[in-house]
């Protein structure tokens, strides 16, 4: 079993308090976050699908360990926004599901998205479909749906492995406008090569805040930025301490490192 180091015992609760404090602050005051091009392009992609009369494919990825995870729930949150947008124009959205545990949650989220836009009749249970929980069988199935339905837009959000490129290249081959976002750093280059817009790094977790403009989520993003600033200062100070103590032959650098590792 892994347990917290001394540094983690102090810093993680401290960062948590900062994030929660900013969330509570954001409920009273408007906060600003910068423009994220990939997310602004979602409306453009939905518009393209509406104009062409072809469906959109929205996937929520494979997840890290499978099951209900934060990464996949975040992807579902973005997909919910896409479906709310598409519902206004009666554009069809197909949501292939990889993990059976996510099926009921995805069905509920998609149904609720249509209901929120006052179009509950647009919900088609066949469009939220569990395919398989085998990696390459899922990739083949999604690629097949993209090709058969001649998707006008594909939205690839969530955690992906080697199958990322199979889906993205098939989307490119049918001329779909493609927007991808993943926390999987190994797959980001493949998405950048094959997709029109890619959301990288913590933009992925900022997406739902950016799209919804909901104060709680905006506060969360600003809180994250403050914590990142804190980490940046810590990294600079730590580098200086370790370098100077190594030069001077002091044990301070070792003690500083041990604070994070033991």
């Amino acid at each position, binding site marked *: 079993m*892994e347990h917290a180091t001394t540094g983690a015992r102090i810093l993680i*609760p401290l960062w*948590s308090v900062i*994030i929660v404090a900013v969330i509570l602050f954001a409920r009273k005051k408007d906060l600003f976050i910068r423009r994220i091009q990939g997310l602004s392009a979602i409306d453009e992609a939905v518009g393209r699908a509406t104009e062409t009369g072809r469906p959109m494919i929205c996937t929520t990825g494979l997840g890290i360990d499978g099951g209900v995870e*934060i990464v996949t729930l975040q992807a579902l949150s973005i997909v919910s926004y896409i479906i709310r947008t598409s519902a206004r124009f009666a554009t069809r959205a197909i949501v292939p599901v990889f993990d059976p*545990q996510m099926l009921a949650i995805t069905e509920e989220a998609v149904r609720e998205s249509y209901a929120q836009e006052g179009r509950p009749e647009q919900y088609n249970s066949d469009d939220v479909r*569990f395919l398989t929980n085998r990696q*390459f069988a899922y990739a083949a199935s999604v690629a097949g749906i993209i090709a058969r339905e001649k998707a006008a837009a594909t939205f690839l959000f969530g955690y992906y492995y080697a199958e990322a490129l199979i889906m993205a290249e098939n989307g490119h081959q049918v001329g779909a406008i493609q927007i991808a976002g993943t926390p999987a750093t190994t797959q980001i280059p493949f998405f950048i090569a094959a997709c029109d817009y890619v959301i990288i790094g913590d933009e992925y977790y900022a997406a739902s805040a950016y799209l919804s403009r909901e104060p*709680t989520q905006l506060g969360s993003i600003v809180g*994250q930025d403050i914590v990142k600033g804190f980490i940046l200062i810590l990294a600079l100070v730590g580098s200086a301490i370790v370098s100077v103590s190594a030069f001077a032959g002091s044990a301070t650098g070792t003690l500083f490192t041990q604070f994070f590792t033991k």
Partner: protein
Amino acid sequence: MLEPVKGGLWYAYVLGSLILVAALLAVLSLLPRRAKRYIVMTVTLLGGLFYALEFFLPTHPMMVGDDPNADGNFLTPFIVPMANVLPAISACAVGLGVINLFQLHGKRALKRNADSINSIAFFVSCIGMAAVWIASKQPQASPLSKALGKILFEGALQNLDATMFSIIAFYITSAAYRAFRVRSMEATLLLATAIIVMLGQITIGQLLTAWIPPRYDFLHVEVIRNWILTKINAPATRAIAIGLGIGSLAVGLRIWLGLERGSYFDE
């Protein structure tokens, strides 16, 4: 209570659990939406609290499972029983997934259009695979069912997986061709970096700069490649990972403390 049970008690536990779950579901379905929301929030808070406390509380050497030299605290022995709940949920979810597939493909097969053949293929392969696999795992399984199970799993399924995986090589080529086209300053930089990294990776590339004397070894292509990977690529990847970690912490806190909005969280 957390130890496995056998014999008649096992049946009593299973029956009792089924009755309990049925009663619980009946009560839950009668509750108003606001009450359901509070139940979801409370269960989430307690579940998160358990894992957070287990992770943060001080540890001491103790016996955990079969490991006598592990570190843990008073909550650590409950980690495995808690984790055992997940496969049970997962098994139920797989059932739901299969029902979804049968509904979808059942409708399509009955429509009798051009796509119906795919849905019929689904039923044949799903039922066929399940039947053969169950038969091959029986204690008195015949050599035929064992051979069929092996052919379907190792001969067909695994090779189909491998085929899909190997297709990636062609997709990488076509994606790389588009990414490396010299259209802008960034694309040119990407192309130059990619050439150096690729040459540094292969023997023939390393031979190109092997003639450079050792005192100028920083000009060797494999040294430049290493410098790019360790001094540029790795810090950038770590920076992204730090941002992702903080993002994940923030989303986790929002869900854990019931601050999240949207499906399951709004009234």
